[in-house]
């Protein structure tokens, strides 16, 4: 199954990835090739088979007490931020 330019542009937008006009054909070709490859799965009979999300049986999400367990390390963690002010992350204006 081949993807079109528009398909790939839409996917790139959903994934928040900038793809230039020059790069686009290579991605269209690569993604079509990959989708073609995984289309093989449609030939495997799976009626009445439940989807499997976790490889080990019987594993559940553990719960813990609603109590503070971590320390505040904001300054340390924000040391990697491109732009912070007063403990807040600075980005281009969102609301006009």
């Amino acid at each position, binding site marked *: 199954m081949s*993807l079109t330019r528009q*398909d*790939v542009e839409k*996917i*790139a937008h*959903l*994934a*928040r*990835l*900038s*793809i230039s006009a020059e790069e686009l054909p*290579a*991605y269209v070709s*690569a*993604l079509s*090739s*990959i*989708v073609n*490859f*995984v*289309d*093989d*799965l*449609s030939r*495997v009979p*799976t009626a009445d*088979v*439940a*989807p*499997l*999300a*976790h*490889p*080990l049986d019987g*594993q559940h*999400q*553990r719960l*813990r007490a609603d109590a503070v367990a971590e320390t505040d*390390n904001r300054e*340390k*963690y*924000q*040391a*990697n*931020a*491109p*732009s912070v002010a007063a403990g807040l*992350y600075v*980005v*281009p*204006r*969102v609301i006009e």
Partner: protein
Amino acid sequence: MLHNLSIGELAERLNSRQISSVELTRHFLSRIDRFGPALNALITLTAEHALADAAAADLRRVRGERGQLLGIPLIHKDIFCTDGVRTSCGSRMLDNFIAPYDATVVTRLKAAGVVMLGKANMDEFAMGSSNETSYYGPVKNPWNLKKVPGGSSGGSAAAAAARLAPLTTGTDTGGSIRQPAALTGVTGVKPTYGRVSRYGMIAFASSLDQAGVFARSVADAAPALQAMAGFDPRDSTSVDAPVPDYTAALAQPLKGLKIGLLREFFEGLEARNAALIHDALKVYRSLGAQTKEVSLPHLPASVPTYYVVAPAECSSNLSRFDGVRYGYRCENPQDLMDLYKRSRGEGFGAEVKRRIMTGTYVLSAGYFDAYYLKAQRVRRLIVDDFRAAFTQVDLLIGPTTPTPAFDIGAKIDDPVTMYLNDIYTIGANLAGLPGLSLPCGFVDGLPMGLQLIGPHFSEDRLLCAGHRYQLATDWHTRAPQGYE
């Protein structure tokens, strides 16, 4: 030569004060200096940290400590967060990222006394089978510098093979420890899903990722796995089950072990590769194991299944890289959308973008059922096949890779051709099973690997079987020319 000694032998010399950890560390640092650049195996060298760690280990030894890993040098795959040290995940996206904490794997190995020499090169965000997608350039195979070392833990494998450190860590999501171990002639261990904590290990595909280790022998890998394994409350998928004594397990007898040859692994396998596996089976029979053929009929579907599940999970995991809180940010973003798109478009390489987009596609409205849910159903069939096989045999055997190392640049333009390198390794990831790759011979002068796969939490049995093979053969002792 120090770099050819086993961990046991190194521990003996350290304990009898023939050598200090500082001297041992200097020895490996000078090897890295000498061989590192040509191999491009490391992204970050931490020489000063290493000497400080080594001095600390020497002090612990003076105070009476005697752990197997105390003062042993090690290189971490650059996917593990290391406090205060750059953790790039092989990507421009994290080129400027100084990890603010240690991964659990790092903490545990540090507690055991290892000396971290640096961070190993890897395929970007662990996506690749050749270590050619790294932002920092490809890693070379020490057996032939024109060949790939495999991936994604190519730097870790090459470093272990070149004897730049006795131990290196890696991760395995679709084969990324076992495949490079096979292509570089070292031993690689991928534990059961949930055996080793993923806390602080940069996530690629959360239902598949597992941390593991490279060493030149199973006997050396065992203490490292021991230190790494065990329940971690910080990893919600960590399994709370006791960890056996892996070193003690190596001494268990092999007699009566039932080994299954996977029929599907041998279909289409080149004669010379098949011959090496059959030679290994002769060794196992001579050690008292029984062999029989088993079939996993859905196994051929494992590669397409993986290439739906893994990209889907990666598209979700990599959505955190948005140029806002850490990592690469594009210059002069016009608005928030531009910030996201160009930070990600410029920060990620082509293979990562391909996988994110594949994942986005298979999860999108209208395609979710046909692709993602379908893949999860096929995944269950594959898991069921393995479960059925393990009612007949104790372990499964087969090749780790279809061929020895290929040329750098040979497959990088066609993603699907590259993906088929994982054909023997992916099944174990989908089923969460532990797997081991052992050197088992050479084809065209290049190493080949033998893979053993066991049921969940059978690492002790797996390591024992691997160790017994290494006591009866010497493939694992061969060094690439120039690195002896």
